């Protein structure tokens, strides 16, 4: 792909203060990069720290959160940027697609205003020009001028979703993060959404981070896949490789639990982040675990573009 990565995350760790004085280690030692025009999917079950990575990149984590490592976006150190600088970056250079489009729009403001406001706020253009552009973006997504005057509660979920995509495309961000965009959608809307997501990277300059637990969507859209378990990346590589020939026992279990692959769930439950098992976090549920897996955290091993965090493979 491209040589200069758009987003480079190096050894990122995030922890929150826990209820009883302990720390919830939501993300541990995560490294990856996203290039322009590339789609990187982060998959894993709920609570594995996928969304926390997105929030760390957007710098939306609540106060009291401990973040270490480095996040470099377009040559700028995001973790060291001031809130003022972040306000300039958010929206214009990185944008986010939310999982619930109806709730991501202000119910008391007309859609036209919600589309134009960010452009005017960032000083990209004047209001009249912004209105023209907004209408263009809506038309491109199959909506009309009446939508500009409508309130979000008058629109269906699918319309709201298109409006949100219009908002993201209008600001022409270089990095788009989609946080569980297919959650709770029916098949029709997932197809719609897939098309819109594919459209984001089509210009070759925008990178997409797709946070999801929809393996099918990942297979269709992603160039590369990161599989996360308990805040750590356990396997990373080209989507076609990882999804057809999974190496890590967790990835194998994840794919094996899909209906089309026999519906065999991984035994046990994923542990609480406040009380992680010693060594490899997956060892209590892993068939091939031995003394070494219980004792120490396996390092990330690279082999031909594929990274796996496992002693046994």
């Amino acid at each position, binding site marked *: 792909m491209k040589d200069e990565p758009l987003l480079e995350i190096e050894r990122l760790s995030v922890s929150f203060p826990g209820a009883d004085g302990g720390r919830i280690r939501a993300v541990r030692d995560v490294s990856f990069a996203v290039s322009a025009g590339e789609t990187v999917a982060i998959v894993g079950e709920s609570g594995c720290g996928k969304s926390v990575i997105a929030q760390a990149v957007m710098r939306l984590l609540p106060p009291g959160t401990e973040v270490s490592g480095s996040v470099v976006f377009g040559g700028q150190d995001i973790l060291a940027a001031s809130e003022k600088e972040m306000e300039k970056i958010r*929206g214009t250079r990185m944008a*986010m697609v*939310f999982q619930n489009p109806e709730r991501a729009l*202000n*119910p008391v403001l007309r859609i036209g205003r919600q589309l134009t*406001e960010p452009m005017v*706020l960032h000083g990209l253009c004047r209001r009249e020009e912004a209105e023209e552009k907004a209408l263009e973006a809506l038309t491109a997504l199959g909506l009309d001028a009446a939508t500009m005057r409508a309130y979000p509660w008058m629109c269906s979920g699918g319309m709201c979703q298109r409006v949100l995509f219009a908002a993201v495309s209008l600001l022409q961000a270089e990095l788009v993060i989609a946080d569980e965009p297919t959650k709770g959608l029916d098949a029709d809307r997932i197809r719609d959404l897939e098309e819109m997501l594919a459209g984001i990277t089509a210009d070759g300059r925008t990178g997409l981070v797709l946070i999801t637990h929809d393996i099918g969507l990942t297979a269709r859209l992603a160039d590369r896949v990161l599989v996360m378990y308990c805040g750590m990346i356990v396997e990373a590589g080209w989507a076609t490789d990882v999804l057809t020939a999974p190496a890590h026992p967790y990835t194998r279990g994840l794919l094996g639990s899909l209906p089309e692959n026999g519906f065999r769930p991984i035994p046990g439950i994923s542990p609480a982040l406040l009380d992680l098992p010693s060594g490899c976090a997956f060892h209590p549920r892993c068939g091939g675990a031995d003394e070494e897996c219980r004792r120490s955290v396996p390092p990330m091993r690279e082999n031909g573009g594929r990274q796996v965090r496992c002693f046994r493979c």
Partner: protein
Amino acid sequence: MKHRYFLPFALIAIFAAMATFPDLIAPFTPTERFSAYQAPDAAHLFGTDDMGRDIFSLVVYAARLSLLIGFASGAVAIVIGAAIGLAAGWRTGILDDLLMGTTDIVLILPKIPLVIILAAYLTPGPWLLILVLGLLSWESVARVVRSKVMQVRSADFILAARCLGFSEASIILREILPVVFPVVVPKFVLVTASAMISEASLSFLGLSDPTMLSWGVMISDAFNHGGFIREMWYWWMPPAICIILGVLAITSLAFLHERGNREVMQL
């Protein structure tokens, strides 16, 4: 749906006309004198008072101060209440505790007795009255605004606004204020109505500036200068009816607005 708004709007329009162009409506100025204590006739619709002034003209001219005191106190209360409610609801923690503590203190102050004490020392003119009534009625506004802000502050669309690069100030002004606005409007109207009643009560008790011309002062004059003993109901009744109609028109607008909102919500 629209006809429900007709009566209150018509009344407010009439009062507003009286307040803005009294000289066009009233046949005489408040300083012109005729013979005192006249009964109503064709020349003097409501007769004349103890100083021989035309009562109908006085009622028209008094609309200006009565409405001004009501609306201006309402505006003072809304501005203070909304600012404090926004700050307390947006920034939780110590600032919230401090602001809400202050609000609770203002809430438990017995208003009319306090105003009476203040008035006894200051004999307030219209501006002081506006300030005092406004400063004593923002607390309910602050509480309503705060709870609304707390309700929406963690909403997805606020997070979405942050992701679009909205600063804190623009989130409050552009995203939260429009949400808060529909609860503030009826509050403004209610505070305005209660300020009008407070002004009338204080003036009747003789605790405001007796030289100012308001409906409350007119009733007080009628009481103190023989209007009640002589059974000149046409002296004190018109200003009293004006106060009642004014308050009713203003509050019914607020209730209609609220009902309209509820109907929209139920759609």
